[in-house]
């Protein structure tokens, strides 16, 4: 993220602290999607992730008057999100189970197994289908990762944050981030190895 983007986040937080609704809307536009995906990666439940994301924005709003840009905005934001998930997960009625690699995966988030008409995407239906299937497989493999590896992977790979920032969000040394990212990728490589290209 450029320094301009960083400054923009700080400016938005200042405006938020003064009650500017448009600043809230703009922050939401910028960060709602990364947040809901990050939280989904944590809790594996789309509806719950959306609720958590709402809660995070409420926390951001309420913290705005006393916000100080001591760290990158994204560091602060994901730190809040992760802590909120850790607090809220105890309230769920049952333990979240990983998505089955053979089960519906995300393709079931919308419930339907019927397919749409061929989309306007210029890729072939085959590419789209295989992409979707691969995404389901990867989604399942990520869900199977031990939590400490998954947290690092979600922040560092899925959200594209540098190791330094991941270490600040998770409160662990950079060396630990490096080690856990390697372990996460190694396990994903093992999980996704079975596909063959042909006999």
């Amino acid at each position, binding site marked *: 993220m450029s320094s301009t983007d960083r400054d923009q986040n700080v400016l938005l937080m200042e405006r938020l602290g003064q009650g500017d609704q448009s600043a809230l809307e703009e922050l939401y536009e910028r960060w709602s999607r990364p947040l809901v*995906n990050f939280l989904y990666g944590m809790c594996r439940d789309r509806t719950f992730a959306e609720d958590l994301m709402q809660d995070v924005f409420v926390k951001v709003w309420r913290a705005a008057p006393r916000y100080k840009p001591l760290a990158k905005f994204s560091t602060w934001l994901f730190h809040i999100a992760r802590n909120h998930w850790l607090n809220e997960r105890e309230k769920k009625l049952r333990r979240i189970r990983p998505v089955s690699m053979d089960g519906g995966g995300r393709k079931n988030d919308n419930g339907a197994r019927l397919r749409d008409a061929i989309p306007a995407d210029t890729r072939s239906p085959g590419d789209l289908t295989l992409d979707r299937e691969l995404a389901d497989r*990867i989604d399942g493999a990520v869900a199977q990762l031990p939590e400490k590896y998954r947290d690092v992977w979600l922040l560092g790979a899925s959200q594209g944050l540098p190791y330094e920032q991941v270490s600040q969000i998770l409160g662990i040394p950079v060396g630990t981030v490096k080690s856990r990212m390697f372990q996460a990728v190694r396990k994903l490589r093992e999980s996704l190895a079975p596909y063959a290209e042909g006999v």
Partner: protein
Amino acid sequence: MRCEDRGPDLLAHALGQLDAASRALVDSHLPQCSACRKERESLVATHSATQSAMQGASSLPAPADGLSRLLATLGPEIESRRSATASGAKSVSSAAPCAEFAEDVVVLALGSAESLSGARRDEVEQHAASCASCIEQLETTQLLVSATKAAANLAPAPQSLQRILERTGEPAEQGDREALPQVPEPTRPHRSRFPALTWFAPLALAAGVLIAISLTETEAPNTLPEAGIGYLHVAGRGASKQIPVGADSGRFDFAIGDEVHAGQEPFTLEVVCQPDAEAPEARDRTLAPGVARLTLAPGSRLSRADESRFTLLAGQVNVSTGPMAPGFTVDAGDLFARAKGTQFVVAAADQRLVVVVEKGVVEMGRRGADATSQELTAGEQGLVTADRLLRRAADGTSRGDAFLAPRAALTGAARVGPGSDAEFSAELNVGLAGPVDIASFDASLPLFLVRLKGPDGRERQVKLQPSMLRGERPHAADEGRTLRLTAESPYELRFALPGADLGPGRWEARLRYMSYRAQSDGAEWLGVVESAPLVFEVEGE
């Protein structure tokens, strides 16, 4: 450092995450070590592929109504803060972070302010008056305190200890018996000079109690969660959270206008639609009259339109109902499926509704200018769209979601000798409303995939290239990228997989293919279909 320990550094080096010194070390090592170069390449490939997949097709969008819900939740606070800013009021940002006040705010709520020093009490009260999160904490704590005080103060009955000892057979200690209150002996009944009046008063009291109960008793909640976890979204609450409901949470009210969402697993609930439903002489009754059992597929959403009419907002619901009039209905836009004591599955996506009937009779149709409907009986499935209403025998493998796709039956030898090829054949029959095109999966033109599961439980997927297929092929279109199937010409294809590459043991194979139906204004995507599994044994040497 040994090469086998370099993994984390190799990945970090590829991602540009190493400090200068570490990067220099890896830079100097890589030219001399092909194993590390290969490992680095492999790690990067996995990282890139998984990152792209997660950031691409499977990335979730933000919820469409998320911003409006957020603004509805924060509305009063936004207005309050804006007003405070406009009037030049001192911003809360001048106060210390709430973490400093949280504990003392609770002390205030408990009514124990005297335990704080005077200055501190003033500081906390001043802060709590203007901080939204502290106001919330104060109010919540006060509510909890009030509720606790209002709870009945139960004391054990005097004879409790005696009863417990009797049940456990434990002899009481002498001291215990002496501690029990003395129960007076019953006195002789007093005979009234007016025996009728003796009974009148208790009867009148009992009648009054019954009348009071009937007037004040509220109906029991109408829905019982049976399995899985769901979320109840109560109508009119706007941006409030959805309430988790599951088998552990007990009955809840699924009122008109409310929505129920399934979580990550199927969610089953039993809904009382008609509390006073009578039981006719039903020939096919699965549940009590007026009751419906609904199983929502993961991620599915259902709202209640009236007592026995529900709207399927997304996904799939398995419905089983007891007899009820005028019938249990599932809507999806103008499309509907209605049952009167039966069991069926209905799935909706965009402008299609598919129904598979397991028991009884289901009426399926559409409303509006081009209204029409048809009855499906057990063992049938139907599809209704804006311009079609189709019906066919149900196929257990398709579960209704590949309604129009061609069906395939995969056959082959049950045992494959050592070193021999595993030979397969499959017949594809076009479904209703053909012709149907089989599309290739990617640019290398595999029209079919074989999904294999080996004795080690791991899965493989084999692309069948055109050169691997034997048998007369139907008309090829689009430079061989598609095959066109018509009702008149089913396609029988044959292919072989080398047994040597499969290895000895038990294998399971499924044939996969994609199809679509060409239309004048585009195409209707029918989806990916798999044949039923074929099990075969590869013999060892």
